[in-house]
């Protein structure tokens, strides 16, 4: 690990003020310390924001504001989250381990980096880690990498479960930074790799996430389901966050679908949603919508399984949610 300076921020604005090139914000550290030890992250200055008073979950009208430093455990255990946003609670609980969830923060979870084997190994090329060095995953180990929205420069996936639920819930990410405060709607925080895979998100240097705000929960039933060969403590092969509301006439009035571990972003299945809303809540409709969504996929030889998997998940989850 490269030497660095450590400072503890007294406030969000103090954190931003301390920011200079080479600075990274330290939340729970569960991914950043991991990456620093691997030499993947090499900050000169760590500004610790984990103890800022951003650890509160509070209702704001019919919305819920979740502080950026709220630990994953506390988010999932919060009575309001459990009652009104069960999809989010389940997504958080599906991730990592009890220990890691105790340490990891909401902002850190959003900003965690891909678990692509090449990205994590500084002795091998990776366009995300070292722009222009190449992407060996495309010819090599891409078994758990992206099938949607990838580029010739990068096929990494975003590994978060929580972010998938937040994408489905139309959450808003509150950011403060050198350029002032702004709000970024989910999905939209994360970006597709394109020719700049080193940029995971739309955040600018010095930006600090202060909160995530959840609009009123979508109507109908919701679910989060994660597929993995180990029954726990494993990243998803594919995951889904979905909600479905069907009127008494049998017509879909609201539907949200987001997929995890299929793209560089938590993938909101907008095409499928558009097809479903206003149509019948039948297995055939679910299948048609899933296939339309996955039509955009460009799988590689060893991750093509994600297409039937995602299709099955969408159909099975919606069938379960349908009345």
């Amino acid at each position, binding site marked *: 690990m490269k030497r660095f300076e450590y400072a503890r921020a007294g406030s969000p604005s103090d954190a931003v003020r301390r920011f200079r090139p080479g600075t990274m914000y330290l939340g729970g550290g569960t991914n950043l310390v991991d990456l620093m030890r691997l030499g993947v992250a090499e900050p000169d200055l760590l500004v610790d924001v984990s103890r800022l008073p951003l650890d509160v979950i509070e209702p704001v009208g019919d919305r819920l504001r979740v502080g950026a430093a709220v630990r994953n455990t506390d988010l999932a255990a919060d009575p309001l989250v459990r009652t009104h946003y069960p999809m989010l609670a389940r997504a958080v609980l599906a991730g990592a381990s009890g220990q890691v969830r105790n340490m990891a923060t909401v902002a850190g979870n959003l900003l965690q980096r891909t678990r692509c084997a090449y990205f994590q190994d500084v002795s091998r090329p990776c366009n995300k880690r070292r722009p222009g060095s190449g992407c060996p995953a495309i010819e090599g180990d891409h078994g758990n990498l992206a099938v949607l929205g990838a580029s010739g420069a990068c096929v990494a996936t975003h590994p978060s479960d929580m972010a998938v639920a937040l994408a489905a819930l139309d959450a808003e990410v509150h950011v403060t930074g050198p350029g002032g405060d702004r709000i970024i709607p989910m999905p939209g925080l994360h970006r597709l790799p394109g020719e700049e895979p080193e940029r995971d998100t739309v955040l600018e240097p010095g930006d600090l996430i202060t909160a995530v705000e959840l609009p009123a929960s979508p109507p109908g039933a919701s679910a989060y389901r994660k597929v993995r060969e180990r029954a726990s*403590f494993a990243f998803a092969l594919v995951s889904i966050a979905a909600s479905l509301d069907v009127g008494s006439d049998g017509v879909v009035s609201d539907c949200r679908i987001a997929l995890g571990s299929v793209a560089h972003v938590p993938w909101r299945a907008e095409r499928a949603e558009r097809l479903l809303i206003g149509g019948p809540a039948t297995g055939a409709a679910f299948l048609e919508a899933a296939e339309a969504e996955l039509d955009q996929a460009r799988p590689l030889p060893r991750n093509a399984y994600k297409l039937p998997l995602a299709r099955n998940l969408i159909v099975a989850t919606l069938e379960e949610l349908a009345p």
Partner: protein
Amino acid sequence: MDITLKVNGTPHAVDVDPRMSLLDLLRERLGLIGAKKGCDHGQCGACTVLIDGRRANACLALAVAVDGSEVTTVEGLAEGDDLHPLQAAFIEHDAFQCGYCTPGQLCSAVAMLGEPGPSAVTGDLALDPELTPEEIRERMSGNLCRCGAYVNIVKAIAEAAL
């Protein structure tokens, strides 16, 4: 950097390299070898300790970042010669073989028994679930045991939880 922390009730003031993990501080500086280094990346749970009462991977915590915290390691679980009920149950159920994951399993279990809320296998999120074997297995899955003592670990925890 100078930090202070309390470990198993004993205050320590130490000057640490900012790169040093809490785990290395415990093991290499404070002589507390109970917390184990199995992966150094939060992937095995052998380093699990309690930081301010919550279980955490000591390998992922920078020592400077836990300045002012209270840390409990496996060495702090027993009251003198009296083993913690979980420690006794682990012995009674042969819930370990090589023993290397054991301190992490124990710290994890101690904290887990006090953790509120649902888990990934909880049916109804609105209710705090009963601690069934299935719940124990899910909640303890952050602690790998390569010797394969899981079924005994679950029995030991279930018994101690009564």
